């Protein structure tokens, strides 16, 4: 037998073995695991995960699938025959599309009573709120104090000529925070006021980039990169992160948030229709709302828990601003208009 014959035989065996392994996965009576389908930003601490596995007796498998948009697209493609049991990571921007796609089975978790009413976005409980994050303008404190220029205090300020060439935002067509910021301007100025705001912002030489990574790490002067723009669209939780991940740790956060500009996003989870393990899926949704997981959220995913009993870590208490009354739009309104708004925005700002 030549080496190539051997290799071919090995490949044939490999294929057979693989099919056998794949085949073994199915056909069991009681699944011993529960699969969480989620986006790439999902993180859970090891001990928190172990705790769920011990208390439920189920192995927690996590399947990560690109960003929130890709996650939802794949879930829609597999509606009814899902890749897992629970989906986490659909936000209010995409909620209407998810509900229209009939992805979820209703489940009302008993832990919902510990959650503030304003986060409950679906009266039929097809989705359950898990965390909220606020997209806000962030600015580099040192940049402004060194030049003795007043930092921005409101959305209106951005069109002021003293901020010409200083702002970097993300493209709402390709970035979640970018979309949230566009929605913030729609919520603040209404139609067609938001369009005028963006026309003036364009005249003020706003820089539009593709995604948060480039905006924050590449263009913003207040982060690790060598950017030269001191105002960026990021999150309310970014200032504490700049403290936690700095060496040595500074006493105050080097960046701050423009509270007036904040737009709230709620992230939700749901039991996928067609789950192989409905009981396990419900246990998992309960666990996602449990204080144990909820208190893990800020330092792992840099968003805020929805459970009011969950305590915030000290860095968040000290350096994060949770805006009292952030800008909001209803998921239905977003769902109806989102694509049109993005198209109009593209025409106004990019063409």
């Amino acid at each position, binding site marked *: 037998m*030549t*080496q*190539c*014959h051997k*290799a*071919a035989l090995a*490949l044939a065996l490999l294929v057979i073995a*693989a*099919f056998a392994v*794949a*085949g073994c*996965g*199915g056909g069991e009576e009681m699944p011993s695991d529960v*699969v969480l389908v989620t986006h*790439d*930003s999902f*993180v*859970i*601490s*090891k001990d928190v995960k172990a705790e769920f596995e011990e208390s439920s007796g189920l192995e927690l498998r*996590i*399947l*990560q*699938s*690109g960003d929130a*948009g*890709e996650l*939802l*697209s*794949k879930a829609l*493609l*597999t509606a009814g*025959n899902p*890749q*897992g049991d629970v989906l986490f990571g659909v936000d209010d921007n995409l909620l209407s*599309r998810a509900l229209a796609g009939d992805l979820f089975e209703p489940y009302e978790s008993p832990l919902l009573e510990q959650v503030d009413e304003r986060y409950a976005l679906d009266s039929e409980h097809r989705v359950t709120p898990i965390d909220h994050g606020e997209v806000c303008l962030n600015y580099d404190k040192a940049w402004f104090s060194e030049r003795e220029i007043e930092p921005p205090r409101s959305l209106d300020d951005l069109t002021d000529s003293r901020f010409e060439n200083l702002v970097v935002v993300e493209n709402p*067509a*390709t970035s979640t925070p970018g979309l949230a910021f566009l929605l913030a301007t729609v919520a603040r100025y209404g139609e067609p006021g938001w369009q005028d705001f963006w026309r003036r912002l364009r005249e003020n030489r706003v820089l539009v*980039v*593709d*995604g*948060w*990574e*480039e905006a924050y*790490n590449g263009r913003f002067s207040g*982060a*690790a*990169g060598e950017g030269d723009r001191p105002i960026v669209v*990021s*999150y309310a939780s*970014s200032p504490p*992160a*700049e403290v*936690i*991940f700095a*060496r040595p740790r500074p006493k105050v956060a080097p960046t701050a948030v423009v509270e007036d500009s904040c737009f709230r996003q709620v992230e939700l989870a749901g039991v996928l229709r067609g789950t192989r393990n409905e009981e396990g899926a419900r246990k998992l949704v309960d666990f996602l709302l449990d204080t144990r997981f909820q208190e893990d959220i800020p*330092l*792992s995913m*840099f968003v805020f828990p929805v459970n009011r009993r969950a305590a915030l870590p000290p860095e968040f208490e000290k350096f994060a601003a949770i805006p009292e009354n952030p800008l909001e739009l209803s998921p239905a309104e977003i769902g109806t208009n989102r694509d049109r708004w993005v198209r109009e925005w593209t025409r106004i700002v*990019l063409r």
Partner: protein
Amino acid sequence: MGEGVDTHRAAVSASAWRALAYGVPLAFLAVFFVYPLVSILERGLTSGENLASPFDVLSDPLTREVVWFTLWQAVASTVLTILVALPASYVLGRYAFRGRSVALAAVTIPFVLPTVVVALAFLALLPESLERGWVAILIAHVFFNVAVVVRVVGTFWAGLDRRISEAAATLGAGPLRSLREVTLPLLAPALAAAASIVFLFSFTSFGIVLILGGPRYSTLETEIYNQAVRIFDLRAAAILALVQLLFVGLAIWAATLLEQSLAVGGRRQERDVLRPARTRGEKTVVAGSLGVLALFLGVPLAVLIERSLAVGDGHSLDAYRALGRSTNALLATPWEAIANSLVYAAGAAAIAVVVGGLAAFAVAGSRGVGTRLLDGLLLIPLGASAVMLGFGFVIAFDTEPIDFRSSPWIVPVVQALVAIPFVVRIVASTLGAIDERQREAAAMLGASPGRVRREIDLPVAGRALGVAAGFAFAISLGEFGATIFLARPDSPTLPVAIFRFLSRPGELNAGQAYALAVILMAVVGASVLLVERIRVLRPGWR
């Protein structure tokens, strides 16, 4: 052994061999490429209420703009890449010098770095007037793809009998004329092979276009992504994917024609033709070509190294130290991510070498239409939409006995899909150049076809297979294309880990992302060196 028996066995084994060499690659392609892609295209074309006609998408002026830009930037990127890479390919394919294998491994590094990381390095380097637009896109495409040309063309060049060009020189041809009339025609198969790969990569470019082009530039691939993921208009995405496939098919067809019309039956002798640079002029050429390339490739890489050290005021190894501590950014430790990457890459390289190696024997064995078709078919995955293929996997393999949408070994399979064309091109162009008289002579002396393969083809292919395996390994370490769009279980690879760190605020996270990128560079360089070393050490595989 009786003569009659041997001939009979030879005939049986020859046809079995042919069936295997064609069958395995075709089956692999059918199951893991055609089936998922057709599934998603069919779903897309039949979805949506508006089934009127595809012409609304096709006649949109925006679509035409996108197609035009995609096309011309890909052609320009290809031409530029070849021009930039040719001097180094020559030097690496002709001269033996200390550090040659290190140089070959180092050239591979840019090719496998995650685009986001490289794009951020370019943003730091390019003057502001250049950094958003087509110039930046072209520069980055050249940066990424130089490795393809150097490896494919350089490997081939190393197998060219240098006596031919020396004879031309003796007959009075100047160096330019010798290059134009002798060397280039001999190189044509390898040049066409490399050019078609570079074209396909640039044609389907995604991350580079998004970040370095700014929001005003889009390729078909970014537009497909936009339609499929952002707007979830699968029908428009499917139509654009078909347009993309059409151009990819045309490009491959053109490359094949070009290759045939340019190629001359060069006599090649497979032995080491490398020799040290002797004259001062030769030494200048070696140092000059490599120096320029080192500068072009090295400066962006140096920026990454600098960033990985820049934590706090001044520089330190803090980011590297932080990698050892438990982190909340990943579900695994960074070291586990490195181990995962190596395991996936080994699997992908093994699959690619077996499937691609068999295809190379089929392609090199004859000049018929069938082999051309096989060769072209195996190239198509490089030019197909990664996002659509990723979606295709999700809906194609969704029923229980073969529900491997989420099983971990789908990752090396998809990576192999990208690596196979490289294996075929590197191995086949070398095999195809074996002097047919050697085979005939061996057969005449009574060697069975199996023995001819074992004693003549395999040792020759050994060199190319080694290079191809190293390249396949490196490709899957960098994790290209469709794997990004697959659902991955909680076993992150290095590029995934880099992206996770980069997508979190805070200086230390950015530092750790760059530190992992530097580790990826080192792992790629070391593994390419190692794989090629194994090949060299193996007796008879020289």
